[in-house]
């Protein structure tokens, strides 16, 4: 019981802050906080794939695109309620995740990374090809748009829900199977774990999470889906966010999401370097720093703090998604 109390305590703090935030932040800053929620969902999804099954993807922006366009097109053509479109985006991205995950079973490591990178590069050309239905470079505009507080509320409510879903999933058999696949495929097979099924499942789940994030992302952009929104940079940002987050800790994912969500806003006004290149320079420098100093990301930092303080006071503290070593 004691082990769960700190976890609940941390969750309570985060929940309280999230509830209070829109009342103290300006409308515009609430809007920015919504974006952090959106990236939280995407990084959470990517974390399931890269952290838990050890498969690399530099292409999950593609699933955000799929989710985003699902929302825009359904709203434009059928005036579907935006929340309902998000459910469809989740489901549709899951299916595409399966379709991509199956052939990807043959690949691993660098080759899988290259395949996902190809996905990231090509996805923005799909609307250009099928421009009649997908709007081409002109984009697709939804029939309804929502305000800043709505976006904030829905993003973070979805983030909380999906975090709970991920936690439930990963603490059970599925999570153990994922970790087995990551740690040693041979041992996993020897233990009767169907690698193919679990790898594909991880792909599909992470794709679904990114699909939901993409759906919210388009809503966040005033319901306007455009190919340029889903360029390669988005997939790379997600990977950077996941690296900054580290494996599975709530604080880590929050940190990663805040990093990629807010840094562009902050670094655009860096003095000396200036508006044009501020983002690129600051982003690049920080990524290198994180890689050098915190190879395990924010979660690793917390882990190290924990080890350090355990030396003083033997307690486990961080709120984390179920981890193999602590079971």
């Amino acid at each position, binding site marked *: 019981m004691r082990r769960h109390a*700190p976890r609940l*305590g*941390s969750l309570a*703090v985060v929940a309280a*802050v999230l509830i*209070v*935030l829109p009342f*103290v*932040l*300006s*409308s*515009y*800053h609430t*809007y920015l906080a919504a974006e952090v929620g959106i990236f939280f969902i995407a990084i959470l999804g990517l974390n399931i794939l890269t952290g838990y099954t050890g498969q690399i993807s530099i292409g999950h922006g593609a699933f955000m695109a799929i989710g985003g366009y699902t929302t825009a097109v359904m709203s*434009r053509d059928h005036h579907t309620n935006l929340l309902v479109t998000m459910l469809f985006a989740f489901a549709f991205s899951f299916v595409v995740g399966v379709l991509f995950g199956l052939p990807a079973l043959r690949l691993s490591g660098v080759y899988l990374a290259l395949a996902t990178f190809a996905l990231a590069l090509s996805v*923005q*050309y799909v609307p*250009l090809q099928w*421009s009649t239905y997908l*709007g*081409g*470079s*002109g*984009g*697709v*505009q*939804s*029939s309804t*748009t929502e305000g*800043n507080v709505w976006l904030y509320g829905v993003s973070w409510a979805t983030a909380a829900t999906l975090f709970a879903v991920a936690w439930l999933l990963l603490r059970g058999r599925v999570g153990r199977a994922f970790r087995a696949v990551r740690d040693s495929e041979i041992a996993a097979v020897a233990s009767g774990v169907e690698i193919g099924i679990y790898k594909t499942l991880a792909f599909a789940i992470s794709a679904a999470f990114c699909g939901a994030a993409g759906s919210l992302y388009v809503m966040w*952009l*005033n319901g*306007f889906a*455009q*190919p*340029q*929104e889903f*360029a*390669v*940079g988005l997939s790379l940002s997600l990977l950077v966010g996941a690296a900054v987050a580290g494996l599975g800790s709530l604080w880590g994912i929050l940190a990663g999401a805040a990093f990629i969500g807010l840094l562009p*806003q902050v670094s655009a006004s860096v003095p000396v370097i200036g*508006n*044009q*290149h501020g983002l690129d320079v600051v982003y690049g420098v920080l990524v290198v720093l994180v890689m050098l100093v915190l190879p395990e990301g924010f979660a690793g930092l917390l882990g190290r703090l924990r080890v350090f*303080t355990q030396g*003083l*006071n033997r*307690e486990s*503290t961080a709120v984390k998604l179920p981890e193999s070593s602590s079971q």
Partner: protein
Amino acid sequence: MSINRKKLGAVLGVMVAIAIAAASTAGAAQQSTPGVTKTSVTIGGTFPLSEPSPPNGASLYKTIAYAEEAYYGYVNAPKNKGGLGGVNGRTINDIILDDQYTPSETFAKTKQLVESDHVFAIVGSLGTATNLATMGYLNNKGVPQALLATGDAYWGLCALKGSAFHPIKNVCTKPKPWTEGWQPDYPGEAQIYAKYILAHVSHPKIGVLYQNDAYGQNYLAGLAQGLGSHYSDIIGYNKKKNSAPDGAYSVGESNAQIGARVGKLEADGANTFVIFATPGSSIAALATEGALHWTPSGGTFLNNVSANRIFMLTAEGSGAHPAGVISSTYIKSQTASQFQNDPAMALGKQIIYATGNAALKHEWDIGDSNLVYGLAVAWTFVDALKHAGNNPTRASFMKALRSLNESGANKNPFVYPGMVVKSSASRTFPMQQLQLEKWDGTTHDWKTFSGIYNSGH
């Protein structure tokens, strides 16, 4: 447990501190009219200050923003320092943000300008797709989306009536009273070329290279409309879809791909070549035309946003032979002999030189028409702001924008002589005149010919 409490406490403390800091900035006193104080007016706009990926040459237009900024600097300077002392006692503060010609960036930056910087109006933002992305938002919020740096017809058509005429559903179905363009619109320009072709080319077979999005489709529709019953002179034209596939390039196609399309149009038997593109692609198209030694008997027509002298010089440097290419203009030129003693051009030169920016000075000297365009638009903004009264509101400013009368004694000094900038309740396109010009290969500059045409609405 003690570690836990310490950590939680620290985090909670930090979050509360952040929240308080944010709240204090949020709680800044709201004026009754955002962006207007007793001594200043704050406006903002989005421009491609840097290239999107993949690059398409859009950042070549950034000199428009710098010219506008320079003009406001001149207006703000006190009278004894050679300025105008502001407008009704207020200086103009112009916030220019980079949107990399990417609509999602435009939306985010525009939202920042409106909700964080509390600007009075969005002025001069550049691009069709980019402004379409923010048109609904700005109109919902009642923020003027004024003097846009794009000639698409949507701004005029959508203003008061709303229109189903729009390739992007849901954008134009409701009237957009807070949106107004400035320059002559693209379909009108295309119609003028169509009429010229019908009058001067026998049995025209027109190959059209156009950007396959809202921007380019606008031009194509205008060309077809101008040809009337002869719309099938456009090679491969599908009237229902408003498309001509061979020349329809997508944003992001490489110069090589654009060149291939030019070759295809030549192979299709085109005797007239029309280019409705953005600078990077237009330069590539002209260069390919030169490389193929293709000289269509009916002539080559170039949209005026691609006809900036600096783009033409670049095209020549890339192997183009643009002598005889026809385009149009509606502003004065820095390099044309007819304006060598023009006082407005002298003033413009002074204003640009006063920025101290060596690159801008050089651009003026080689005839970057973006600079004159920027000065002209800024002049109209100041004109409208003056007429918005001593205590301008967004509504009074919009009213002034819809009753412009820059003609006669109040003519815009940077606009081509004889042309007016006029708007009214029914006239939602402020500029509707174009002067034809032809590229002279010996002087490497445009030479006006024929006359001023109406792009009529």
